[in-house]
Structures are given as C-alpha cells and as structure tokens.
C-alpha cells in the first residue's frame, strides 16, 4: 500500500480524472472530498462488506443443518 502524509487542504490525484482532497482532520475522523467522473462508483468499504455479508447470510442452509451447528456452540 502506498502511504502518503497529507494536511488539510492538500490533495492527491489518481490517474487523470480522480482527485481526493483531505478537507479537515478532527478527533472524530478525517473529512475527505472526492472529485471523480459521474459514472465512477464511490462507496464506503463497509457498505460493500455488508452487501457481501448479506448475500452470504441470504444463502442460509436448511434449517436443520443450521440449528445443529448453532446447538454445538451452546455454552
């Protein structure tokens, strides 16, 4: 992973048409601005993880298999 240090107000460029600007840094987190072509999807990574995790959860196995797997965990 490329690691750079940036201060508020400074930007970086990815390719010809993506600009990422660090707008502000506070104790709550960094505020980031993104300039990119309209057709480019920008997602919080947690959202993609949640989509994948939901898709996996939706493939629930037959209930019998599941409840026996759960029962094994019972403490």
């Amino acid at each position, binding site marked *: 992973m490329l690691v750079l240090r940036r201060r508020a107000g400074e930007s970086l460029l990815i390719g010809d048409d993506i600009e990422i600007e660090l707008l502000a840094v506070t104790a709550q*987190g960094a505020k980031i601005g993104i300039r990119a072509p309209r057709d480019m999807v920008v997602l*919080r990574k*947690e*959202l993609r*993880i*949640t*989509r*994948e*995790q*939901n*898709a*996996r*959860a*939706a493939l*629930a*196995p037959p*209930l019998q*298999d*599941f*409840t026996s*797997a*759960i029962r094994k*965990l*019972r*403490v």
Partner: protein
Amino acid sequence: MPSVNTKYFGTMAYAEESVYDFPSGLPAFEEHRRFVLIEQPEHAPLVFLQSLLKPELCFLAFPILVVDRDYQLGIAEEDRAALELEPDRQPELGTEALVLTLVALRDNFPPTANLMAPIVINLKTRRGLQAIRHDSLYSHQHPIEWHAAEQTC
C-alpha cells in the same frame, strides 16, 4: 388476515401491523422493503427475518445481546435521523429499538454474526434499516458464542 409463504415454515398468517418497513431495503436486497419477524420457541433465541416479497429470502438473526452481551450501540447520526430516533443519543434496547444481528454460515466454518452492521428497528414506527457502523469496533464476521441466558432484543 394476509398470509406469507415462508422459507422455513410453510404458509403463515400475519397481522398487517406486525410488518416491519425497510424503506431502503437492505444492502444487496434493496427491493425487499417489508419483513416479518418469525419467532419459534423451539429455535429461540434465533429469529427469522422473512421477506414478504420473496419466500426464499429469510435471514437468520439473533437479538444482538445474545451474541455479545456487552454490545455498545453505535448507530450513525444519519441512520438515527432516518429512523426518527433521538438525534443526540443511542436508543434504548428493547424499549425504543429492536436490534438484531444477521447470521451467516459458511461451509465448514462456524456461524458468524455481522456486528458491524446490525438491523435496527424503531419500535414505535416499526421502521427499520441496516445501520452500518463507521467505527471499527465490531467485526462483520463475529464468531457466535451463544449465551442462552440473554434473550432480550
């Protein structure tokens, strides 16, 4: 009384006022906006979040405290606003909000729960959403250890 074809329990009757409304659906299942919660004593504390749109879509879920009895809510401000929960604090579990964690089972792995993105329902409006945390305090694949004593949503 309307009825729903369920994934696991055949056809079940339900009351219209028992329906939970998810205006934005769930990530990857945005078109599913209405769910009922099925609780069966023999499977407790496991609960079933059944889509009214498609019988095949039924999530297995636990009340979040079953999976982590010390779970601290971290519902983002925009999600609290969307659910019309108090803007300046987290809701109270069980009285103001129902909070569930969805369960996934992978082949040959123990079941895991998504504690990073719990299902949050405002009990007053019966409206819900999947509230993705922006912090990194909880895993999206939390190994489930079952605390049988804790059964509160």
